[in-house]
């Protein structure tokens, strides 16, 4: 066991992956000498060399497009997109090639690659540094999308993602990079695509992922002081969703609230609601509600608190599902 920040846990996990398999490569802007703008790749180029830890030219499409070629050649590339808002030049390569080459080649090409993206808000940043693009990738068949929320999860999930043969969009909640937690260096807590009950409860099920999990847990604590028992589930895997624990929870509570930063319209949150409503129709005492960012571009961060799902808005949704029957 060791105490470390999520950024450090990712660093250690990447290090182990690089040690375990010489085919693992890292590429991205400023990941080598600088060690990454969040220091996630700190010290790796010094130990593994410039051929394996590549400082890329400034072009996201180039980073992902060349990674595709390296994967075809049998390498296991781990791409870093510097910020969520900068992934879009790479979107074409991701959707057109990364997601489809395994299928197009009848399984001959393995797109065994990881694309790491720091995502989400709550850091008081300027434009394009607080986006939630995971929905676009969850929607694209051929891709898998996951998000760790603790240092322990980060340490293990990055290694599990690198050894997995499907392309994985690895969404790292940047507002959690500096939070410390216990990391078990010997055994993973669970599988890469397993959901996790972050907090037990009996009145309402709240499903969240990424940066919203901690907000949901804090809302559950506030709800407890108001006399309500809220269960929080950390989805961990955004695509595919690990439904059984969510189903068991909603069958127990009969009430569902989904929390995410990404605006609700055609979102991952909507997918969670649709699937759980289908699976738990007879158990639902109230319609499932989504608490998300509003349908506008991410605002100037001085007002992001009011735009994002916060404790007040989550508790408001809890009020509504609990009051539905009366």
């Amino acid at each position, binding site marked *: 066991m060791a105490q470390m920040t999520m950024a450090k846990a990712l660093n250690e996990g990447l290090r182990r992956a690089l040690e375990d398999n010489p085919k693992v490569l890292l590429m991205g802007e400023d990941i080598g000498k600088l060690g990454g703008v969040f220091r996630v790749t700190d010290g790796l180029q010094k130990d593994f060399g410039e051929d394996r830890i590549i400082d890329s030219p400034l072009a996201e499409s180039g980073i992902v497009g060349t990674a595709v070629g390296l994967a075809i050649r049998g390498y296991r590339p781990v791409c870093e997109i510097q910020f969520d808002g900068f992934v879009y030049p790479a979107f074409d390569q991701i959707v057109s090639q990364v997601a489809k080459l395994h299928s197009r080649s009848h399984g001959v090409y393995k797109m065994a690659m990881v694309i790491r993206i720091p995502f989400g808000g709550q850091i008081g940043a300027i434009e394009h540094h607080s986006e939630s693009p995971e929905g676009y990738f969850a929607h694209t068949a051929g891709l898998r999308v996951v998000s760790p929320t603790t240092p322990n999860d980060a340490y293990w999930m990055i290694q599990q993602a690198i050894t997995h043969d499907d392309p994985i969009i690895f969404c790292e909640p940047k507002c959690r990079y500096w939070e410390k937690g216990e990391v078990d260096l010997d055994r993973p807590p669970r599988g890469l695509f397993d959901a996790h009950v972050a907090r037990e409860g009996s009145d309402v099920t709240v499903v969240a992922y990424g940066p919203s999990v901690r907000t949901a847990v804090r809302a559950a604590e506030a709800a407890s*002081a108001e006399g309500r028992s809220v269960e929080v589930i950390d989805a961990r895997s955004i695509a595919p969703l690990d439904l059984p624990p969510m189903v068991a929870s909603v069958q127990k509570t009969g009430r569902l609230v989904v929390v995410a930063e990404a605006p609700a319209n055609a979102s991952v949150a909507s997918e969670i609601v649709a699937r759980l409503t289908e699976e738990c129709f007879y158990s639902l005492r109230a319609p499932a509600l989504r608490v998300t960012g509003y349908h506008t571009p991410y605002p100037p961060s001085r007002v992001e608190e009011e735009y994002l799902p916060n404790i007040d808005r989550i508790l408001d949704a809890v009020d509504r599902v609990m009051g539905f029957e009366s």
Partner: protein
Amino acid sequence: MSTREFLLPDVGEGLTEAEIVVWKVAVGDTIALNQPLIDIETAKATVELPSPYAGVVTKLHGEVGDVVPVGAPLIEIEVGGSDAAPPASSAESATAPQGEGRTAVLVGYGVATDEGAPTRHRRRGGAVTTPVAAPPAPPVPVTPSTNLLAPRSTPPVRLYAKQHGIDIGSIRGTGRDGLITRSDVERVVSGGTTRVASVPAAPTGVTRFVGHELAPWESGPKEERIPVRGVLRSMADAMVQSAFTAPHAAAWVRVDATKSVELLSALKARPSMANVRLSPLTLVALALCDAARHFPGINSRFDDTAGEVIVRRSVALGIAADTPRGLIVPNIKDADALDLVGMANALTTLVEKARAGTTTPNEMIGTTLTITNVGPFGIDGAMPILPPGTSAIVAVGQIAKAPWVVDDEVVVRHVVEIAMSFDHRCIDGALASSVLAHVGRFLNHPAPALLAR
């Protein structure tokens, strides 16, 4: 003149704390706005911090080598002197503009630090709650996962139940996997006046037996084998144990219960009794508990193993209840402490829970006296088998109009037969008869008995 504090800000470099490398000012120095104050060492670099104020340095917090957390005071400066430096605006703050601590994450203002217990600030409808104004309500303990599930139904049925003021969770579903159907709710809705503390009027044909739905005579198998399990097993075992352990004897009495019937009618008509389900069983239960107070020996049990007869001075009143799964005997703890309304409500709850299958294990153990009500079936009496651990069980028959002699005249009265089986190891005929007579007197003339409590 006022003293301003400069707190260690996040400088956008992943800072949670910083080490003081060198002070560039000293106490007493007159300094200008933006004058370099200090060099701090972050994770990998040294950063110079410029002063946000012009004035005189009054205090330095920390020495070279000290590690200071972000948000902690670094320096105090007295401002507002005769300096040429332009006065700071009153809206100025040396901390992050949101006025709260922030943890740096290398980009932007940083993550807001979560201090203290999370609370709600605003509610829909405009009520602004002031956090920390009142002491928080005791937190709800987190319930560990249980196997209890939310009641299963559909939105239209839930709405139907809600419209009729019925808690859907109290209804036992007969649909697949316990689904609560519309007819389940309808049954409860139209059940209306039959939601009494007695078992509903017996149907002309019972399709349930030992907890199973029986196929009709014509269409079912000639020989049907039902495994002895669950409630059936419990009932069989208890009966065997009791019948072959305690020598059962019986006594019975016929009672003119007209005054009880009249009292119940009068009470039911009162508005204050509108939500209370009163029935003859209520009075029988009160009568039996009253008898136990006068004759405690009836509320005993014969403990062969310990070689003792144990007399209890608290009645856990068992009521035989017929449920879809079979016969169970849940009890009302401390029944002797209940008054008329209390007993009526306790009986109502007991029967509803039995029907819904939500009787708790605790309610199934510790019975000291039992009543089985065979009246609704149109039966006059029975010789029931004692539930193990008790010495007396009372069977109440139907209350029916019958000819009765009053003042040497034959008149029509409401007559009921009360029978008792008892354990003759500790209860003798005299005691049993005395108890039965007491119960009979209570039902014959209830008002004084109720008032005497």
